[in-house]
Structure formats: structure tokens, C-alpha cells
């Protein structure tokens, strides 16, 4: 597609349940990033993919968080045993490698609410 697509756009889940968030990057973009934005805070880096590999997972806040990417395309961010502090907007972005000054293209995000 023309842009980065994320689904679902909104997700309400009960504390303790698992959730999966999906990202479809721009075709041909080899780099893919997950960020999250909690209320009143800046964007917080979670994980970076180059192709299907994740050389930088340093931002994942706990072992309840995991992500994978397949076919150098779709990525899934999974949060197990969700907690209320996981409530945030989860943003996916993609870019061409080496294009740091061109910035990323972000999706519209998934708003996750844990009740």
C-alpha cells in the first residue's frame, strides 16, 4: 500500500490478557520500527528490524513484550499478560535503510487500553 498500515486502530483488553498488534510497512522498506507513546510522554523506542532480524531490541520494556517480522514485510508486536501501564498508542514506522535524514513513515498507531 501507499502508507504504513496498523491494525487494529483501537484495542481494549482486560488486564492479564495477551494482545497482538500488526504492522504492514511500505513495500520495499527494509527497516521497521516500533515505538509507543504513553499519555503526556514522548515517543519511546521499542524495537528495530532490519529485514526479518531484530538487531536492536533494547527498548522492549519487559519479557512480556516480543515482536517478529516475516517476509521482510508484516510485523507483529505481542504483549503477554497485559498490565495497565501498557496502555499507550503503539506506533509502527518503516524506512529505507540509510535514509536517516529522510525520516521514517509512521502508521496511524494502535491505541491500546488495558482495563
Amino acid at each position, binding site marked *: 500500500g501507499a502508507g504504513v498500515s496498523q491494525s487494529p486502530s483501537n484495542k481494549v483488553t482486560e488486564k492479564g490478557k495477551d494482545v497482538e498488534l500488526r504492522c504492514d510497512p511500505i513495500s520495499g522498506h527494509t*527497516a521497521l520500527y516500533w515505538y509507543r507513546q504513553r499519555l503526556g510522554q514522548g*515517543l*519511546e*523506542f521499542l524495537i528495530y528490524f532490519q529485514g526479518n532480524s531484530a*538487531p*536492536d531490541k533494547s*527498548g522492549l520494556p519487559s519479557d512480556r513484550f516480543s515482536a517478529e517480522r516475516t517476509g521482510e514485510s508484516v510485523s507483529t508486536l505481542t504483549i503477554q499478560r497485559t498490565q495497565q501501564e501498557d496502555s499507550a498508542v503503539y506506533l509502527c514506522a518503516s524506512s529505507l535503510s540509510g535514509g536517516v535524514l529522510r525520516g521514517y513513515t509512521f502508521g496511524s498507531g494502535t491505541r491500546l487500553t488495558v482495563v
Partner: protein
Amino acid sequence: DQQVKQNSPSLSVQEGRISILNCDYTNSMFDYFLWYKKYPAEGPTFLISISSIKDKNEDGRFTVFLNKSAKHLSLHIVPSQPGDSAVYFCAASGISTGNQFYFGTGTSLTVIP
């Protein structure tokens, strides 16, 4: 630890005037600085960037200034238009800081017609 800071959460400017959005950073190893613009219910969109070898980059109504000694950058919008009303994020990265960008908390700009 917040490495990129935007100390003004909001700014209001009259249409036609200049908007100046400020950003401070703490890591002298940052090499690249970007500004993003975000409308409600949308993802941030890339606006303008600057590398640390420059002190100014201009693109139409948008100019970014970088003061490395002060670890400060600013975004100037002139003339401001109502459609510029959005949240603006600055972001910084560097070869030595890995692949992630560090983002500020954003400044909400309102341009009053």
C-alpha cells in the same frame, strides 16, 4: 532519562506571524535531528531534518536551526497558517546511539486565524 526535551507543551501564534518551537538535547553524540508533525488520530509525519555538520536547513516556510554548543535546535515556521496547528516533535539520533531516534514530548501549536 529524557535525552531530548521540549519544555513548552503548547504555543499559540497569530496567523501570518512566526512560530518558533524549541528543543534541547543532552547527548553531544547526536548527529541527526528531525522534526515531525502530528495531527490527532494520525501518525507523525516527517517535516524537516538537519545533520550536525550544518547549522541551518530551510524548506519553504520551515527552517530548522541547530546550535551544537548549546545543544539546542529550533523550528521556525513563517508565515504561520491555521493548517500548521498540530503537535510538533523533535527527534535526535547518532551513529553511536544505534538505530533508534530519541523523541521529545512534543509541543502543541495552535495558529489562530
